[in-house]
């Protein structure tokens, strides 16, 4: 199958999706070993992964996925809480799977899958046999997985039934009989999707003298019943059909008795031992594959931009409108009728707005895209560091531009790591401080105005600002007397300074700040800002503000020496023309604005433009928590602009991109924070 390469990207993407899904559900299971939904989800994902891997010819991956299923099978069948050791094994297998998928991606040869030491299974045996002493009943506890399979089967017009098989008292090879029942089920157009007790217990003969099998398929149940009755030492068979509405389980089948036909064969016993092998084969049967395909179809779209139809329709109609309007425009221009030109302009404007809104919507992706890998990461990290962490995620459905999503992963990992590593204390320290030994890290996202906020909150030890301050004084960043004027917020901001935050001492004493400057820079490159709040002993909150989209922003256009620059409106607080309010001081010019003293910069000086500049306007900008006043010659107005990225070594760092204005002029989009950073000493 050499054309499989074509499917490789989809396979990789889906595999990573399933690995995330598996990790997250294993984490859920670890927190609540009785979580049936999570267990069913693990099964579904492992099963699909197995099918995908086998189809692509990655047998070790298929084997590993199978091992994952096997490790958890008994818990699914017995409805017992999953043992910790089984989850641990699950994580190990999953790590192997992830490594191998990475190898597939890198074009490397797969490592053979070695069965993990299954002491786990030994231990889990203690939990098995839950049905052993239970009275016979036609009830069959459908797990979520079974329910789903049954529902799908019924929808496809198949039949689903529960078969209760009673063996003769004192029967010798119960396992063999059970196996023959399974074989009869498969030979007669059915598929066994679950049993009570589970397949393993049946095989090990860990049951009294009866068992139940849940089957789906197209065969004739009556024929099947007869076939089963003909198996030696089967004394009774009861078939209960499951209705489409699943609520009522019809129990109209008869109990029959038939003389046992002696047909003891040794060969059968061998076959029974190979049952798992046969089961595996069965899972590659056509019916199974259709199911896998359905699952795949559900997930496959993730690799592409999922496009809701209404957006496309709406976009299409906006474009058709524009085509009409263009034709009308031509006529209107010829006629020179001012009024119809104006009304036409209004209509065109509206159509463009619709198109713009829709095309922006198409680029939106839910944050869960990056959030998905965090539960596992948090779990592993807290274990590694000996911390107890309760991890809460909220707002994963918040949508943000794809281009931003792609670059959000690393900064978020960084902040979460900080929260666990430096924020949350060790359990014993938390108890000493009178806190819950389990710390809480909360990752929250929400949408507000044109921004998306992502907040990481921990209830750890917080930042000791006095230590940060003494470090800042020691480093000469601030003088002793200046220090006394600094607000808590300003002190915390020292942590964002390059070099300051990476120093190991500070991370030891303050419990914070590894590479915070890098984190801040990344967020700012995305057009966002970062805020850090902390209360000593109570915890730390990191707030990231990100624009919904990077492609189209609202901007304030300003003019300096005939050049027009665009300032993202998100950094503009207010505009004033009271330039006389700017006062000279020995430290540079300042603006007193409602009791707040702001540093004043002249845009033309920041940009090192030569020549005379008469500044007529003051723009108050907010750069993170810092405010400043920017003097410009002229403000042109507010406008929606389409940013074209300008990644070139020939373009200075303060340029975030460029935009084309209505008259074809190129305007530079200014990144205020990097502009101020490089020129902190140039005062206007």
């Amino acid at each position, binding site marked *: 199958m050499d054309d499989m390469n074509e499917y490789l990207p989809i396979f990789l993407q889906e595999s990573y999706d399933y690995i995330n899904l598996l990790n997250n559900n294993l984490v859920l299971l670890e927190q609540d070993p009785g979580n049936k939904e999570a267990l069913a989800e693990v099964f579904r994902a492992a099963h699909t992964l197995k099918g995908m891997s086998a189809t692509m010819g990655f047998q070790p991956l298929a084997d590993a996925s199978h091992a994952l299923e096997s490790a958890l099978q008994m818990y699914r069948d017995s409805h017992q809480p999953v043992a910790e050791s089984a989850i641990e094994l699950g994580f190990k297998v999953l790590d192997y799977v992830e490594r191998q998928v990475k190898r597939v991606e890198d074009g490397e040869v797969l490592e053979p899958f070695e069965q993990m030491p299954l002491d786990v299974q030994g231990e889990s045996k203690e939990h098995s046999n839950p049905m052993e002493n239970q009275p016979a009943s036609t009830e069959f506890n459908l797990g979520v997985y079974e329910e789903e399979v049954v529902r799908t089967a019924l929808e496809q017009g198949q039949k689903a039934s529960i078969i209760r098989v009673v063996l003769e008292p004192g029967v010798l090879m119960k396992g063999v009989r059970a196996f023959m029942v399974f074989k009869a089920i498969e030979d007669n157009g059915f598929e066994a999707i679950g049993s009570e007790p589970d397949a393993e217990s049946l095989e090990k003969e860990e049951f009294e003298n009866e068992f139940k099998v849940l089957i789906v398929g197209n065969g004739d149940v009556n024929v099947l019943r007869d076939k089963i009755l003909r198996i030696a030492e089967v004394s009774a068979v009861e078939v209960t059909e499951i209705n489409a509405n699943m609520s009522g389980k019809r129990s109209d089948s008869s109990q029959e008795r038939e003389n046992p036909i002696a047909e003891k064969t040794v060969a059968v016993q061998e076959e029974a031992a190979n049952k798992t092998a046969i089961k595996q084969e069965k899972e590659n049967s056509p019916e199974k594959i259709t199911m896998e395909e359905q699952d795949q179809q559900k997930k496959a779209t993730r690799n592409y931009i999922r496009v809701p139809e209404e957006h496309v329709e709406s976009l299409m109609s906006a474009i058709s409108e524009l085509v009409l309007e263009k034709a009308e425009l031509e006529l209107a221009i010829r006629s020179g009728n001012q009024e119809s030109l104006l009304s036409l302009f209004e209509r065109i404007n509206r159509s463009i707005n619709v198109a713009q809104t829709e095309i922006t919507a198409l680029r939106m992706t839910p944050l869960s895209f990056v959030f998905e890998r965090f539960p596992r990461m948090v779990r592993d990290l807290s274990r590694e560091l000996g911390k107890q962490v309760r991890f809460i995620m909220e707002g994963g459905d918040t949508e943000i531009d794809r281009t931003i999503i792609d670059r959000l992963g690393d900064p978020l990992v960084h902040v979460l790591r900080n929260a666990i590593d430096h924020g949350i204390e060790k359990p014993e320290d938390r108890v000493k401080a009178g806190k819950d030994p389990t710390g809480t890290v909360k990752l929250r996202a929400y949408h507000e105005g044109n921004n998306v906020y992502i907040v990481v909150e921990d209830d750890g030890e917080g930042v000791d600002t006095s230590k940060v301050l003494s470090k800042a004084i020691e480093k000469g960043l601030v003088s002793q007397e200046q220090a006394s004027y600094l607000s808590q917020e300003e002190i915390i901001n020292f942590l964002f300074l390059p070099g300051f935050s990476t120093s190991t001492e500070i991370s030891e004493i303050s419990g914070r700040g590894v590479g915070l400057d890098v984190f801040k820079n990344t967020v700012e490159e995305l057009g966002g800002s970062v805020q850090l709040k902390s209360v000593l002993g109570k915890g730390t909150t990191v707030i990231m503000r990100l624009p919904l989209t990077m492609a189209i922003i609202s901007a304030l256009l300003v003019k300096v020496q005939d*050049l027009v620059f665009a300032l993202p409106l998100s950094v503009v607080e207010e505009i004033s023309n009271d330039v006389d309010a700017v006062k000279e001081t020995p430290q540079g010019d300042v603006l007193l604005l409602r009791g707040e003293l702001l540093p004043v910069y002249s845009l033309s000086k920041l*940009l090192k433009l030569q020549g005379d500049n008469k500044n007529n306007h003051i723009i108050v900008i907010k750069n993170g928590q810092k405010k400043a006043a920017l003097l410009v010659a002229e403000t042109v107005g507010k406008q929606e602009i389409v940013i*074209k990225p300008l990644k*070139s070594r*020939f*373009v200075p760092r303060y340029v975030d991109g460029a935009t*084309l204005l209505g008259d*074809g*002029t*190129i305007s530079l989009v200014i990144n205020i924070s990097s502009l101020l950073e490089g020129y902190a000493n140039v005062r206007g």
Partner: protein
Amino acid sequence: MNEFVVFTLGDRKYALALSQVVEILTPGSVYPIPDSEPYVLGLTNIRGSILPVVDIRSFLSEPERQTNTKRHIWVRWGNEDIVIVVDRVEGIKRVSEDDLKQPPEDITNHKGLEEVFMSENDLVVVIDPLALVG
């Protein structure tokens, strides 16, 4: 066979690999970028693509001079697109492998100057504009 776009800067002839040249244009407006390197003339808009315009003269020790027949050459090298300003475009020249020579001693150490060839008694220097300014 190697194909080159031959152009002039001042009195000398230079060449770019044809594969690197996207388009030869009559210059449009160039908007300056404040606080950029002196050889970066600014940005120009070519049908919606905004590209930096670079003057490679200073790297070739060519004096600046006024000519009216300037051309812009849109050059693509890997992912990087720039526009360079030249005086005149001579045309496309095919040169066989054998006719390509190492540059003379005095310019061999100069990065961005790849090879030379003779064209109608003129020495033509093949340049790699990005290596030249980088």
